[in-house]
C-alpha cells in the first residue's frame, strides 16, 4: 500500500515535471518563431495598416510590397547576383577543398604537417578582419593592370567571379577541416584495392573516396551555401556598383532608403525574400544539418 502511494506520488511528480518542461519549451518556441511570423505577416500589410497597429492581421494580402521590393528596391537583380555568387562559390569550393582534404587526410608526404597547420590557422582569420586589406590589394592590382592597353577595361573589384572565389577560399579551412575528419575515417583498404584494380590516383579519389564521402560533402555544401548566400562584410566593401550587389547588401540599402521613403511593406517583403531560400533549404535538409554540426563540433 505504502509503496503504491509512493510510486503514485512519483508518477504524479513526473507528469508535473513534463508539463513544466513543455511550458518552458513552448515559451521559447514563441520567442524564436514570433518575430519571424510577425515579419511575414507585416510583409503583407499596407503602410497605413502597419502604422495603425503592430498586432492586427492584414485585411488583404498586399502583394504589391513584394513587387516594390523586387523592382523598385532592386532585390530582383540582387537575387540573381546572389544565385550566381553562391553557385560559383560552391563550384570553386568543391574543386579546391576536395583534393586538398583528400590528399592531407589519406596520403603521407613530407610537408603534410605544415600544410595542415597553415590551413587550420585560417580558422582564426575571418573576412571581418581582412576585408579592407583584401579590397586594397585587389584594387591596386587592378590599377596596375589597367595601365596596360589590353587590360584597360578589366574590372577586378565589383567582379562577381572574383568575389565568389574569395568567398570560396575563405571558407577553405572550415570545409577542409570537416571533410578531412570524415575522410580519414574511411579504411585504407579501399585505396589498395583500387590500386590493385588498376585505378589511377585521380580515379581512386573521384570514383572511390568522393562517392563514399557523400554525406560529409552534402554537409559542407549546406554550410557553405549559407555562408555565401549570407556573406556581408566583404560584399559591403567589394561590391559597391548597384549592378553587382548581393541580397544582404540590397536589404541593407533598402533599410537605409526606407528611413526616408517610409515604404515599410517593401522592407518587410525584402526580409522575407532574403530569408525564403534558406528557409526552404533548411526544411529539406535540417536533420542532416544538425547532425553535421555535431560532427564538426565533436571532432574539435
Amino acid at each position: 500500500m505504502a509503496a503504491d502511494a509512493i510510486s503514485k506520488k512519483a508518477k504524479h511528480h513526473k507528469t508535473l515535471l513534463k508539463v513544466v518542461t513543455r511550458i518552458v519549451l513552448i515559451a521559447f518556441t514563441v520567442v524564436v518563431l514570433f518575430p519571424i511570423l510577425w515579419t511575414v505577416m507585416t510583409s503583407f500589410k499596407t503602410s497605413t495598416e502597419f502604422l495603425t497597429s503592430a498586432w492586427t492581421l492584414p485585411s488583404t494580402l498586399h502583394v504589391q510590397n513584394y513587387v516594390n521590393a523586387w523592382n523598385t528596391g532592386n532585390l530582383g537583380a540582387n537575387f540573381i547576383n546572389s544565385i550566381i555568387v553562391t553557385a560559383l562559390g560552391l563550384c570553386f569550393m568543391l574543386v579546391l577543398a576536395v583534393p586538398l582534404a583528400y590528399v592531407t587526410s589519406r596520403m603521407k608526404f613530407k610537408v603534410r604537417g605544415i600544410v595542415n597547420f597553415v590551413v587550420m590557422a585560417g580558422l582564426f582569420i575571418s573576412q571581418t578582419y581582412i576585408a579592407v586589406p583584401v579590397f586594397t590589394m585587389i584594387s591596386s592590382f587592378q590599377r596596375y593592370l589597367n595601365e596596360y592597353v589590353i587590360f584597360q577595361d578589366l574590372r577586378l573589384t565589383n567582379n562577381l567571379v572574383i568575389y565568389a572565389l574569395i568567398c570560396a577560399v575563405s571558407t577553405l579551412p572550415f570545409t577542409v577541416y570537416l571533410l578531412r575528419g570524415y575522410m580519414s575515417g574511411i579504411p585504407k583498404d579501399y585505396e589498395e584495392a583500387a590500386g590493385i584494380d588498376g585505378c589511377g590516383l585521380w580515379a581512386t579519389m573521384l570514383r572511390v573516396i568522393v562517392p563514399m564521402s557523400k554525406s560529409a560533402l552534402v554537409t559542407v555544401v549546406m554550410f557553405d551555401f549559407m555562408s555565401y548566400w549570407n556573406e556581408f562584410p566583404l560584399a559591403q566593401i567589394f561590391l559597391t556598383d548597384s549592378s553587382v550587389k548581393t541580397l544582404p547588401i540590397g536589404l541593407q540599402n533598402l533599410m537605409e532608403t526606407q528611413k526616408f521613403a517610409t515604404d515599410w511593406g517593401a522592407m518587410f517583403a525584402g526580409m522575407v525574400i532574403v530569408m525564403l531560400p534558406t528557409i526552404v533549404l533548411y526544411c529539406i535538409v535540417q536533420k542532416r544539418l544538425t547532425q553535421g554540426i555535431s560532427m564538426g563540433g565533436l571532432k574539435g
Partner: protein
Amino acid sequence: MGSGKIAAAAPKNRNRQRAGFIAACTIPALVLYAVFVLYPTITVFYTAFFSQTSLGGSSRTFVGFDNFIGVFQNSQFLESLGNQFFLIVVVTIITMVAAMFFAALLTQSNLKEKPFYRTVFFFPNVLAIVVIGTLFVQIYDPTNGLLNAIVSVFTGSESHIAWLGEDRFTILWCVAFAMVWQAIGYYMVMYMSGMDSISPELYEVADLEGMGKFKQFFKITLPLMWEVVRVTLVFFIISTINMSYTFATVMTPENMDVPLTFVYKQAYAGNNYGFGMAATTIMFIISFALALLSNKLTARDD
C-alpha cells in the same frame, strides 16, 4: 604505408606520378589561400607600423609603435572595445547557459516532439545576420516596433521607447539579445549531441541512488561533456567578435561601435590607414588571447 614493398618494386615514374598528384591537389588551393587569406593578414600586421594616408597609396612612412599608442589613446576605440567586451561576456554567458539548459531539458525529458523543438530552436542560425539585424531594428522601432507594442499591452499606456537610441547599455542589451536569439540553437544542438553520447545507465544508477536531476546535471552531464564545452567556448568567442561587426553595422550604424566597425569607418574616412590596421592587429591579438585564455581556464587538472 602497408604497400611499401609494392611501391619499392614499382618503377620510378610511379613515384613521380604520386608527387605530381599531390602537387596538383594542394598547390592551387594553397596558392589562392596564400593570396586571399595569408597575404592580407600579413599586410594588416605590417601596415600597422606605417603611416599611410590613402587606401593603397604609395606614400608611407615607418612610425614604429605610434599607431598602436594612438589607438590606445583614442577614446572612441576604447569605448568600442568596451562594447566588444560587454558583448563577448554577456552573450557568451547567456547563450551557453541557456543552450545547456535547453539541451539538458530536451535530452532528459524524452518528449515525443523533441525533434520539433530542435528544428525550431536551431532555425535562426540559418538566417543571414543582416536579416536578423534588420528584423530586430524593426522590433525595437520607437513608433511601430513590436517590443513597444508588447510593453504597451503590459503597461496599458502607449510606449515609445527608443531602444536603440541614446543610452549605451540599453543599446548593448538590445544587440546582445538579438545575438543570443541567433546563437542558442546552434550550441544547443552541439550540447545535445554531446549529451546523447553519455550512457543512459549512469542516469539510471543515479536515479536508483536517489540523486536529484540538478545534482545529476552537475555530477554526470557537465563533467562528461566538458571537452565539448571547451571547444564551443573558443568557437563562440571568435564568432561573437565576427558577428558583432555585422550586427553593429546593421543595427547601430551611428550610435554604437565595436572595434571592427570603428576600423571600417576609419578606413573610409580617409584617415591614416595604418591606424586602422593597428586597431585590427589588436583585435587579432585579443581574439587569439581570449581563445587561449578560455582554453587554459577551463582545462582540468586530471
